[in-house]
């Protein structure tokens, strides 16, 4: 069945994308982590009561600005944002895969999932 073969090829591409995404983000988190270890002496008391991480580290533009300035925390956060974006990329790629095969049911399903993920990333 050509349908199943196409499914399998799409799955393999998606698996590769996930792997690249997760290792790229782990490398960025690792780099930020090394810098963080070099710059911080003590940290734990901060985490026992919840204040929320400081504002620039909560949004993508703020994280990008910090990472460009090589701030350790912003670099770690950039790696985590790349990690969060990886499943989104997977869904977008499967959306294109279904569009190319004119599979409208699954194009719709992928579109809904993409919309929910983007809304979660952008909205509060």
């Amino acid at each position, binding site marked *: 069945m050509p349908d199943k073969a196409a499914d399998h090829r799409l799955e393999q591409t998606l*698996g590769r994308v996930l792997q690249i995404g997760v290792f790229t983000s782990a490398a960025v988190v690792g780099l930020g982590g090394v810098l963080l270890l070099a710059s911080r002496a003590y940290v734990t008391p901060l985490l026992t009561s919840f204040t929320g991480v400081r504002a620039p580290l909560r949004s993508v533009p703020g994280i990008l600005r910090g990472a460009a300035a090589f701030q350790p925390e912003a670099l770690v*956060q950039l790696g985590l944002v790349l990690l969060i*974006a990886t499943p989104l990329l997977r869904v977008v790629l499967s959306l294109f895969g279904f569009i190319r095969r004119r599979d409208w049911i699954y194009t719709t399903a992928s579109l809904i999932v993409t919309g929910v993920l983007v809304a*979660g990333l952008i*909205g509060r």
Partner: protein
Amino acid sequence: MPYPLFCLILACGSILAGLLGSMTGLGGGVIIIPLLTLVFGVDIRYAIGASLVSVIATSSGAAAAYVREGFTNIRVGIFLEVATTLAAVGGAALAGLLSPSIIAVVFGAVIFFSAIQSLQAQHDISGADRPDSLSVRLRLNGEYPVAGKMQPYNVTGVVPGFLLMAGAGLISGLLGIGSGVVKVLAMDRIMRIPFKVSTTTSNFMIGVTACASAGIYLGRGYIEPALAMPVMLGVLAGSLLGARYLARARTVVLRRVFAAVVILLAAEMIFNGLMGRF
């Protein structure tokens, strides 16, 4: 505590959690959140943020290996992700409204149930006798390799499976765990999808589900880089090790020991939650 020491202990704990979590199918979050809150006194909201990113790392890191073997059902995955992502956004919204102590009690109840469920014998049903009409229309029925040959299987119970998946998404968004046990339950027991296809497709979906709520948690400041860094790297390393070892190991004893640990942690989370200690 000095930060490097804190990182070292957390990284070791996270490697162990990722290793055991992937070998038993319970995931790393069921250990990470109690470790952070009960042992280190970390606020449960930071713990949930750190756990959530490690869930995405685990799911994405392991997916490539599974996909190569041809077990995942991409249609089932995308179809059910509609339920899990919508519910995960709802769960993340709910998390902002509930007090940390209530979240801790719910967390304890969920991991208790998951641990009990993981002890049940796995019987491979290998598909329903006949598909239901909805699974034919949605072309959910698939095939998977058994002893080198492609074996077709039918999918049934599409509507109840979809609804239970929404429950899994809600739990994932509320508690920052993958809730893989509930996902496998919905696919394996209700939709009658073969066990291997259920577990791998569930793993594939966990990252997407966690992604839906992670953006919201990031915006609320739950994701603290100093904490998430050692946890994410540790759980990722542990789960990759676990996935490699899983093919060779018989994990019955391990499964029982791990379930016992999780049940103890569940009891402590519920007790501390009821005492309002979060």
